[in-house]
């Protein structure tokens, strides 16, 4: 106990280099923890986003791409699927339910998704949890919109507020649908998935927005159709982006998948969400490993910095050691003193790093969610994190034994004589 006090006071006497050392360790620890946190949370978040969906169907492209745009709103579809294809499979005898997904518009950077009531009824996330409305109701009128929890919170929307949707998915859009504003009819409970950042409208509403559009541009002059006129028109959509299917019996998953992939109406792709996720992980696995190795080396660099700082201080501290020896410190006290010094530096670095990591998470959480649709949960460090931190502490004590051993040898040679 007394040695620890001496070690801390001695460090305090060299506080400038001690603070720099602690900072270097802290930053490296932050990096390692953040990389691991994002890695595990990304997996958990991706895995939580969709549940209970047996097949995802879209235009023929890559399975990972289809998964990313249909569920995570990352990237965009290369092509649409025709409405009659949706109807064909929605009414398939082996299909229990089908959710249409129509993407492409946005509201202040948040994606807009056209769908129908079966979305609220059948969509599941996490551990088979259904969507819940915290206020209001699902869309009833053509121009009703249901907001995800984050949008309502961030943009401070209440039931009945009018919102204008924009064409395209960018945060800044030059073309908006100001002629057909939507009314907030419901706000969903928080899910921790991209649903929280999605504006949900009906497929018909989606169709109405674009009913007077020609070749990707809004109509001009007399060709315009206003919001009320649109109500009179047939608003059955011509195409959607993707559909989520739930089957009556999971055993038939592969049979239905094959049938969709061989559909003669148009080229379609059906994927199993779990399989596509696995594919995504195996793609990311190499990058994850590389990141992990890099951050481990950064931690080692931090610890080597500590080693350098302590070793270079030893020579100018021979006097300190000799004084301690003369008042009765044994060589093993000197050894312990140096070891405690290394351990205190590392422990402070680890704790500061942990603090920085949580600060970073707290700041970065909404940004990551906004940009990547990833919800990083802020949870206390788990067993894995403690193991990592324990390993860092052990490594630092191991490294600290190098200067400790040198000081031990030095104090045996120097004895009580003070050398400068």
């Amino acid at each position, binding site marked *: 106990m007394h040695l620890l006090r001496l070690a801390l006071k001695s460090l305090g006497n060299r506080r400038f280099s001690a603070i720099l050392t602690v900072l270097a360790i802290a930053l490296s620890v932050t990096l390692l923890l953040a990389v691991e946190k994002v890695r595990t949370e990304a997996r958990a978040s991706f895995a939580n986003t969709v549940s209970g969906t047996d097949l995802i169907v879209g235009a023929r492209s890559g399975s990972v791409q289809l998964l990313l745009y249909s569920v995570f709103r990352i990237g965009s579809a290369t092509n649409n699927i025709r409405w009659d294809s949706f109807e064909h499979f929605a009414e398939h005898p082996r299909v229990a339910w089908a959710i249409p997904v129509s993407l492409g518009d946005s509201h202040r950077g948040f994606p807009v998704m056209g769908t129908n009531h079966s979305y609220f009824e059948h969509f599941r996330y996490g551990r088979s949890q259904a969507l819940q409305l915290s206020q209001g109701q699902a869309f009833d009128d053509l121009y009703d919109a249901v907001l995800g929890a984050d949008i309502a919170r961030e943009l401070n929307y209440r039931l009945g507020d009018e919102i204008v949707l924009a064409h395209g998915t960018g945060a800044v859009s030059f073309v908006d649908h100001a002629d057909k504003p939507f009314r907030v009819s419901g706000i969903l409970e928080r899910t921790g998935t991209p649903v929280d950042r999605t504006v949900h409208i009906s497929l018909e509403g989606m169709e109405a927005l674009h009913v007077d559009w020609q070749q990707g541009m809004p109509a001009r002059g007399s060709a315009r159709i206003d919001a009320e006129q649109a109500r009179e028109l047939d608003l059955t959509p011509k195409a959607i982006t993707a559909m989520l299917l739930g089957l009556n019996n999971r055993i038939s998953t592969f049979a239905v998948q094959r049938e969709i992939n061989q559909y003669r109406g148009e080229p379609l792709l059906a994927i199993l969400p779990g399989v596509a996720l696995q594919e995504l992980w195996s793609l990311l696995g190499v990058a994850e490993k590389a990141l992990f190795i890099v951050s481990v080396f950064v931690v080692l660099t931090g610890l080597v910095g500590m080693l350098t700082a302590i070793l270079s201080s030893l020579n100018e501290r021979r006097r*300190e050691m000799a004084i301690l020896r003369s008042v*009765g410190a044994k060589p093993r006290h000197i050894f312990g003193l140096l070891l405690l010094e290394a351990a205190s530096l590392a422990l402070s670095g680890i704790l500061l790093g942990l603090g920085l990591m949580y600060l970073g998470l707290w700041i970065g959480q909404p940004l990551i969610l906004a940009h990547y649709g990833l919800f990083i949960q802020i949870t206390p460090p788990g067993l894995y994190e403690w193991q990592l931190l324990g390993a860092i502490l052990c490594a630092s004590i191991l490294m600290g034994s190098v200067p400790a051993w040198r000081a031990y040898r030095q104090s045996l040679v120097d004895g009580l004589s003070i050398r400068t």
Partner: protein
Amino acid sequence: MTQPVIQLHDMTYAWPGQPTLLDIHEFTLQAGEKVFLKGPSGSGKTTLLGLLGGVYLPASGHIRLLGQDLARLSSVRRDRFRADHTGYIFQMFNLLPYLSLVDNVILPCRFSRIRRQRALARHPSLEQAACELLAHLGLADPALLRRPVTELSIGQQQRVASARALIGSPELVIADEPTSALDADSREAFLKLLFAECQAAGSSLLFVSHDASLERLFDRGLSLQQLNRAASAQEVI
């Protein structure tokens, strides 16, 4: 008063691969004695102090401290023996810069149980033991006690070092040129304070210096060169 504090008998020492540096036939320091040992630098003075501290062991002969043959103790026990029974004052820079004045004085009691118990037998706390010693040595001002030790004058630092050597009343105080950084007037004043406190603590004093003018103040004066047969042998060559 029965055991001599230091007893050297036919003791020799040589650094590895070098000729014999010290060869002392007989040297005794009785309890309560204040002995002046004169030796110019390079005369093996520092090595002798290391031998008396049990940091090195003699090549032959005996060193007995309080009747205990140091060579018969393990290095750990020698360290403990030194901590328990010997206080040291060095030439200068005796103090740890990161500890307060009082903490510097208390330091030996942290490493030696015997000295802690002795200090506590006469004082309610280690801090009070330290403060009383410091007060006797002319460092009573509370404002001074709060100053960082690096801001003290050298004379003040040496008095703090003396208090540290004396706390817990060790049987032996070894002073290695403690006055060489002081001017002539403060040397005598410092020595008088040191003598008084050694007397009060019942400690014997071995004072090593090259400054012969101080010799008259001690009970007895010796010259290391006369004591050391190896030194005269070298002169002959």
